[in-house]
């Protein structure tokens, strides 16, 4: 009974954002007077995301534990191939759906205020709704093809929104960079899909989970290719370079797409096909190593940046690294847990930075409204923004009792227990612990330099607090950033881990033991060396609190001069960090330049002489043949008639005399 109602509602979840996008987009395109109806556009846009959220809340509340698949219609069928628009509602997709539509609708509300007065207002909401539509396809799709459509759709929306102010060449280029980097990953994902289909003749996630043994021929390749796809979308080494540049887009976009939702789709995908990964420990180890390097490098870069959004962007890369580390050790539920808490506090941080930028734009004499060196002391002027930003900062830094502490500690613990089976994970755990310390450092630095200490912007300026339509989402997200962690309390407290035990790992999904089965060995190690948790939990708490306390005092004493001391501490490494490890330059030299030279000399020659030559030969041939036969067109009707008569006579002669 309940299931029937859910199935009836399901199409609305998917289609409402699409309808919203079409109404706003076409309305703005066809009726210029509609473009200035900001309240109406904002209301439609928000409603089309909030309604699916309400439906999803209802569905989650009445969910009975067994996955529901629902087929909208068959798309293509032939031979083995049967692709349909079918959607899967299970614990994982419901949770992801709640995050996407929940955080999404808050960010829509925020955008009503943030985008006020922009002449592309309607376009912004049309793209944002289209993004939600694509993202819902990605996470609710029951087979890899629907998932891939969503995967490409979010990539497209990301491109459109990064380049939203496309008249600025730098922003247009950033959009292009994101698009190209994502294409590389998408190619890998397509190859993985082809490999899966040629082996088991199905794209459905259920089949993939059930037929892992059948895929043994490509045991390494399929997970590896899927991981490469995830490095593109979820910004890991070597494809993470696009994410910091993606901050060229409007800040709500950075919060929604490049922090809370789209960039986590790689983690979602790996969790969804986790049985494939459990069968390939080598790939898991590779994920762990790459993830910890990404987390470390991004955290180091974040320390040396001064652009508030850039710091948050590198922090996102670093936190994504944490999630991938969890995937690498086989703690899939933990990765999803961190996806959730990260969505809350990082969305809050980005929206807070948007609020700050909004205020700084109106302060005269400030050249770059995103530079934290010209901020300081904003807490007095922007109390709501400052409080919520600090709450989220403490959450991401891992201060106990806030959400980030619980999820990050779970990741660290999983890595530690993974080490009993494969000692490399201990190394990863060490780096992760160090990175957690760096996280606490650079996040405290950015929050302190922005909101506390001396006012470094021109004297007498009064940066104003943002309107309620922007601060209300901040408060809701900050509340979630505090409370989100209580869904997954540490095991040693002997209270149920709501997310794992009651939701994600329950019966009835893919995999033998639960929806997402974590690495069995890792879990066994955890039980065996249970007492270690009494050591690990205080350790990570101590590191977070200690670093936070130290950083706060350090910058209180030194002000902006603290950066100088940090520079001395790191020595020559600091300029490497400042220049983002020269990774862009490295790609420029090793890939871009050779490619350009190759295009210029080799491909250009082929193009000019072979491809163009073929085309020229075709048209010259036609022209020359025409030149000969055009003489037949004498313009004398009787000539034509004579030819026709002769033809008739010939045919008749042939009929009669043969």
């Amino acid at each position, binding site marked *: 009974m309940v299931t029937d109602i859910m199935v009836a509602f399901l199409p609305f979840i998917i289609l409402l954002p699409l309808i919203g996008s079409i109404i706003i987009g076409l309305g703005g395109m066809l009726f210029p007077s509609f473009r200035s109806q900001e309240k109406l556009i904002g209301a439609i846009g928000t409603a089309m995301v909030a309604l699916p959220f309400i439906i999803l809340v209802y569905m989650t509340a009445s969910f009975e534990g067994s996955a529901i698949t629902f087929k909208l219609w068959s798309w293509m069928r032939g031979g083995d191939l049967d692709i349909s628009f079918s959607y899967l509602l299970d614990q994982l997709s419901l949770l992801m759906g709640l995050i996407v539509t929940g955080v999404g609708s808050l960010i829509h509300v925020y955008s009503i205020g943030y985008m006020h007065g922009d002449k592309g207002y309607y376009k912004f909401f049309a793209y944002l709704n289209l993004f939600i539509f694509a993202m819902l396809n990605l996470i609710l799709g029951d087979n890899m093809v629907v998932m891939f459509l969503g995967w490409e759709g979010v990539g497209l929306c990301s491109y459109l929104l990064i380049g939203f102010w496309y008249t600025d060449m730098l922003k247009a280029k950033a959009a292009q960079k994101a698009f190209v980097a994502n294409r590389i990953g998408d190619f890998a994902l397509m190859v993985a899909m082809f490999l899966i289909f040629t082996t088991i003749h199905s794209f459905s996630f259920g089949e993939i989970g059930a037929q892992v043994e059948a895929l043994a021929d490509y045991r390494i390749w399929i997970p590896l290719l899927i991981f490469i796809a995830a490095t593109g979308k979820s910004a890991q080494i070597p494809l993470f370079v696009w994410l910091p540049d993606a901050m060229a887009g409007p800040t709500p976009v950075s919060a929604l797409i490049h922090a809370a939702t789209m960039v986590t789709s790689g983690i979602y995908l790996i969790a969804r096909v986790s049985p494939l990964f459990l069968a390939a420990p080598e790939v898991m180890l590779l994920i762990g190593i790459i993830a910890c390097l990404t987390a470390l490098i991004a955290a180091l870069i974040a320390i040396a940046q001064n652009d508030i959004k850039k710091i948050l962007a590198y922090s996102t890369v670093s936190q994504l690294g944490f999630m991938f580390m969890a995937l690498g050790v086989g703690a899939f539920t933990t990765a999803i847990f961190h996806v959730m808490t990260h969505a809350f506090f990082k969305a809050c941080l980005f929206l807070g930075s948007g609020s700050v930028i909004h205020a700084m734009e109106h302060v005269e004499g400030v050249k770059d409204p995103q530079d934290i060196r010209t901020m300081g002391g904003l807490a007095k002027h922007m109390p709501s923004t400052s409080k919520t930003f600090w709450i989220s900062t403490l959450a991401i830094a891992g201060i106990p009792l806030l959400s980030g502490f619980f999820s990050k500690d779970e990741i660290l613990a999983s890595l530690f227990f993974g080490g009993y089976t494969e000692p490399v994970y201990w190394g990863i755990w060490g780096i992760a612990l160090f990175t957690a310390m760096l996280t606490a450092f650079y996040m405290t630095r950015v929050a302190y330099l922005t909101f506390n200490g001396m006012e470094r912007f021109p004297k007498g300026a009064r940066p104003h607090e943002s309107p309620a339509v922007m601060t209300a989402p901040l408060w809701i997200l900050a509340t979630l950033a505090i409370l989100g962690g209580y869904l997954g309390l540490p095991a040693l407290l002997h209270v149920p881990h709501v997310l794992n035990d009651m939701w994600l790992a329950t019966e009835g999904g893919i995999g033998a033991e639960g929806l997402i089965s974590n690495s069995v060995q890792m879990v066994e190690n955890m039980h065996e060396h249970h007492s270690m948790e009494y050591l690990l939990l205080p350790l990570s708490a101590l590191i977070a609190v200690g670093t936070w306390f130290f950083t706060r005092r350090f910058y209180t004493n030194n002000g902006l001069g603290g950066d100088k001391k940090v520079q001395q501490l790191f020595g020559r490494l600091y300029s490497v960090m400042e220049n983002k490890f020269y990774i862009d330059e490295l790609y420029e030299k090793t890939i871009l330049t050779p490619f350009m030279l190759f295009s210029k000399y080799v491909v250009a020659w082929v193009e000019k002489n072979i491809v163009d030559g073929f085309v020229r030969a075709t048209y010259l041939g036609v022209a020359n043949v025409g030149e000969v036969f055009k003489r037949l*067109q004498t313009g004398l009707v009787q000539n034509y*008639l004579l030819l026709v008569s002769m033809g008739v006579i010939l045919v008749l002669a042939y009929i009669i005399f043969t």
Partner: protein
Amino acid sequence: MDLSSLQPSVLSYLAVSTLMFVLGMIGVLSRKNGIIIFMCIELMLNAVNLSLVTFSKLHDNATGSMMVFFVMCVAAAEAVVGLSIFIALFRNKLDIDINSVNIFKW
């Protein structure tokens, strides 16, 4: 078909029909005046009509005679269209020499 098996009168009808057809064809192919060409086409059509009637009578089958009515109808309709084309042509060129209508020449 063996011509010698036909009755002499049938043969003469067919001979007249052939003559008319060939004369019409020569006219169409050699004359320059549009109206004359047009009349020659009518001649060819009537040659065909004559042979149709002849065979209809010979085989005692009305289908051929029926066909003649259709041909006549089409010929009448064609005369209307053809003549109006020539009138339109004359208004533009003050001439109905078909060799003067040669703008599609190479």
